[in-house]
């Protein structure tokens, strides 16, 4: 099964890096959508279905916390797991993002293996 992914990050360089690393995970990736902030991501989610969302926290216009709150409030998006990908990985921040509805957390810097492990966990991918 190919997974459609939405990458939300204000840094074009990081979006490009995450996209490249997704290709290195060995997972089958379908459509790869990108947004520069939470509001743009919500617009994309209004017209496209994705299997998983990868989002940064510190972004202009709408940050990751606000974005998570909007996703949680939308019934049609409740089944879409959100994984936070951030440099901000203090224990307090991780707890806060998980309490807002994030299903996973990947700390930058990260390896393709760690991204894959977290994606497989939240997507409940089974082996064998």
């Amino acid at each position, binding site marked *: 099964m190919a997974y459609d992914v939405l990458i939300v990050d204000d840094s074009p*360089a990081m979006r490009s890096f995450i996209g490249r690393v997704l290709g290195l995970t060995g997972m089958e990736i379908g459509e790869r959508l990108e947004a520069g902030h939470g509001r743009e991501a919500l617009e994309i989610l209004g017209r496209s279905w994705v299997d998983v969302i990868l989002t940064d926290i*510190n972004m202009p216009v709408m940050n990751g916390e606000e974005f998570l709150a909007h996703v949680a409030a939308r019934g049609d998006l409740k089944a879409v797991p959100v994984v936070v990908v951030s440099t901000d990985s203090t224990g307090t921040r991780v707890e806060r993002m998980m309490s807002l509805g994030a299903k996973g957390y990947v700390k*930058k810097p*990260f390896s393709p293996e760690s991204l894959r492990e977290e994606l497989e966990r939240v997507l409940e991918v089974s082996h064998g």
Partner: protein
Amino acid sequence: MVETGMAETGSQRPGADVAAGEAEQVAACLRESAGEVLETMFFLTVEREAGWEEVAHKEHLYAEMDFQGAAEGRLELAVSRDLAPVLAAGFLGKDEPELTEREIEGVVCELANMLCGSVLSRLESHSLFQLGAPQVTQSDLEGYSRMDAGHRCVFDLGHGDVKLCFWMWREAKAA
């Protein structure tokens, strides 16, 4: 080598500076963070720590970012011009001739962002911070008067060097 001069910080910013006893902890965090970020995300290894004056003559690309929260501070980064395209090519998976200046600057900003987050996560693992957006600046780190008041270090990566300066201030507690 990591150089520190935190005792002078308080004269330029409100609140108390980072306790002198934390200087070694900050130094260790800078080393660990630089090593981890450069190796994991850029596939480059720190060959050695260099002296500040050793690379003073080289041209660098500068970026900086502020943070607030449990403490307030700033991280400043300088990547030597010979290293910057190598970093960007490794990060973006492109050949160096294909890179635009904007792409190189974006990668340098992202390096600053990851280093700052990594250092804070090590120093203050149970605190909340708001990280500002990293920005490229043409400011010359050597010219900053507060330069002597921060933790600073230089990492030689073979292809070039990365200079790092880190400041952190805490509000003074009421007596």
